């Protein structure tokens, strides 16, 4: 009896372990998926984020070829991490446009100078309004827009090399 009691603390600790291990293995799903998937891109016309690339409007999409739309910001760390991956996809011929969130032209220019510029057009979304309309809630996020201007796929977070095949596949399907 007394011997058994001595093991109670260890048993309680085991219970604690069970609970937190569950919490670690099943992290609550906190990604917010866009409600806009399968719907046409919202109407917008954004000014150029800096003078190195032309401005971006919803009319630039839906011209028959699928495009990637990357939402980024110069102040965002994971955006630096995904820059080389985007660069690589651009080299393979994937057309990529971007929206810079709450940014200043000089910061965007510096960011692109340092981390490479895979973008064809960059719009500046100073108030995050287009970002919210797209159903994006953070940076970086990347959308696949098909040839008719419909949002087909959303990638939340930085794109790592292992995500590239999925995205290329989505682009192919969106053709």
């Amino acid at each position, binding site marked *: 009896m007394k011997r058994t009691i001595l093991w109670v*603390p*260890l048993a309680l*600790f085991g219970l*604690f372990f069970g*609970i937190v291990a*569950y919490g*670690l293995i099943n992290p609550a799903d906190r990604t917010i998926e866009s409600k806009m998937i399968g719907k046409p891109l919202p109407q917008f016309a954004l000014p150029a984020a800096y003078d190195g690339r032309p401005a971006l409007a919803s009319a630039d999409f839906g011209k028959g070829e699928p495009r990637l739309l990357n939402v980024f910001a110069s102040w965002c760390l994971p955006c630096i991490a995904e820059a080389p991956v985007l660069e690589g996809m651009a080299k393979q011929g994937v057309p990529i446009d971007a929206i810079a969130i709450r940014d200043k032209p000089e910061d965007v220019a510096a960011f692109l100078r340092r981390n490479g510029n895979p973008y064809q057009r960059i719009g500046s979304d100073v108030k995050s309004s287009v970002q919210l309309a797209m159903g994006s809630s953070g940076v970086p996020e990347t959308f696949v827009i098909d040839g008719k201007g419909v949002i087909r796929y959303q990638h939340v977070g930085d794109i790592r090399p292992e995500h590239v095949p999925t995205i290329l596949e989505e682009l192919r399907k969106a053709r």
Partner: protein
Amino acid sequence: MIAEAGLAALWLAFALAALQLALGVIGLWGRDTLLQAVRPVAAVQGLLTVTAFALLIWLFLRSDMSVALVAANSHSAKPWLYKFAGTWGNHEGSMLLWVTILALAGALVALFERRLNERTLMATLAAQAFIGLGFYAFLLFASNPFARLIPAAQEGQGLNPLLQDPGLAFHPPTLYFGYVGISIAFSFAVGALVTRDVGPDFARAMRPWVLISWVFLTLGITAGSYWAYYELGWGGWWFWDPVENASLMPWLAATALLHSVTVLATRDGLRAWTVMLAVVAFSMSMVGTFLVRSGILTSVHAFAVDPTRGSFILALLVIYIGGALALYALRVGTVREGSQFDLVSREGALVANNLLLSAILGVVLVGTLYPLAAEAVSGDKLSVGPPYFNTAAGPIALLLVTMMAAGPLLRWRRDDAKALLHRIAGPILISAVALLALVVLAPGTGIFPLLGLMLAGGVAAASVAPLWKRNLRRTPLFTWGMVIAHFGIAVCLAGMACESAFTKETLVAARVGETQSVGPFTVRLDSVEPVAGPNWTALEATLTARRGDGKTFILKPQARMFPSPPTETSEAAIATRLDGQLYTVLGKEDTQGRWQLRLWWKPWVTLIWLGGGLIALGGLLSLIGRARRERKAYDRKAYA
């Protein structure tokens, strides 16, 4: 080169910790001669980690953006103090600080602990090295602070603006000193279990570390509470946030340990229980670290959390705590029974203190983990907030404080209930007077504040009662320590009760030139103007406040905007008076050009942190007093 040197120092320290563990284990197996080598190894290990940490500080001060950690957390335009504090204002740096303190404490034990039986000491140092190994591995394999960024960044990503605050810069290290002190106590407990040598000598060796860590935890919690109070602009001083609980739980366990270790040192009682508490206290500091670092409870930043880190800390937790509890279950049955005592005695009161503290600890732990457990079992998403903690922990805390009034007035071993009643009559009378005064002067006060204030009065009186009819100059320093710490609890309790009972709040949308009133003050909004700081811009309101017909004074609350990363914070402006604080917050402008203003008059709120300071001061005096007495005893032994 600096970063590489730092990394090399860490690896060397890692190797030395392994050596220290090996020497200790083999030494305990029988080769006593090896034990001699353990002390110098521990000392060099301490030196190496200090070097590594100093190098990291240097990297931050130089704003070396080729180091990933610096680039992610610093900015060349930051004031130097925050570059300095940025060293540990992030995950990797804070873990490095943790092992630095750990190794340093191990070195101190190795160099200065002389009283304890040699074999127990070696087992202790081996346990310490074992803990160190885990954290070195965590640093080196899962969170290397010296990793290079290729190519180097041109500019850093800044430190979060919320962290650009002198109070917060020193808050984490304070808590870490507390956690590490507990880890030493834990090592002592493991050492004593290994050699089955649980007795007064062990308690005396452990006590200074418990006291030190308790002082630091108290300071850390007090400072953290004040930081949350003035920096967040919500007017509250405790939110029962999981991270706050993570610092409170080790404090509760350390408080219980502090009291039970005294019983063991003075009366050789509560042997098994004290060892258990040392294990629990360390578990709580590890659990705290785990909850904060793994982010499983705080959905806010869970997104950025790296699950491998959480798993790593959890693995360490299982090895250390699981191991220690298993050792406990196997060994403690063979530890000899300590000496006996009556229920009505100092020991009895300390047992009650321990039980009540453990009960509060349990309530807080259950509440903190409940959301996780509920999600695991039934899939419900829920949150447990202040209503739970206040209703569940409040009554136990009040009972505990009541016990605290009686405890120090009891004699060791055996006492008489009637005699106690006689001794405590004064404090009871004071409580009754306080209650009567409150009912007459402030009718309608809630039941908890009422009880709190009544108890605060009685406990304040009872805490100084042990000095009654004593020669104050001959009273030992540690008795003064106890008196001041207990008095601090009464002060703190009074502050909490006043804050919750008498706070006045005004929330309005005011035009420039309009005057508002809150409590005894009138506050006029003179202007709202943009201002700029080194790395932020802000809207600043100028408020002219006045108490009754007294002199006017100016308050300038701000709503600040930081560009990198874009964040907004509100800087409350607080005017401190002898009897409380006027707390003002600037909100948003509405469509009609009015400004939201939130004003609080919080009578006696400052007592909360003053009490916290007194508690820590009491602990410090006690530490000095004990150290002096130990030294005297040691010298006597040495000369004899």
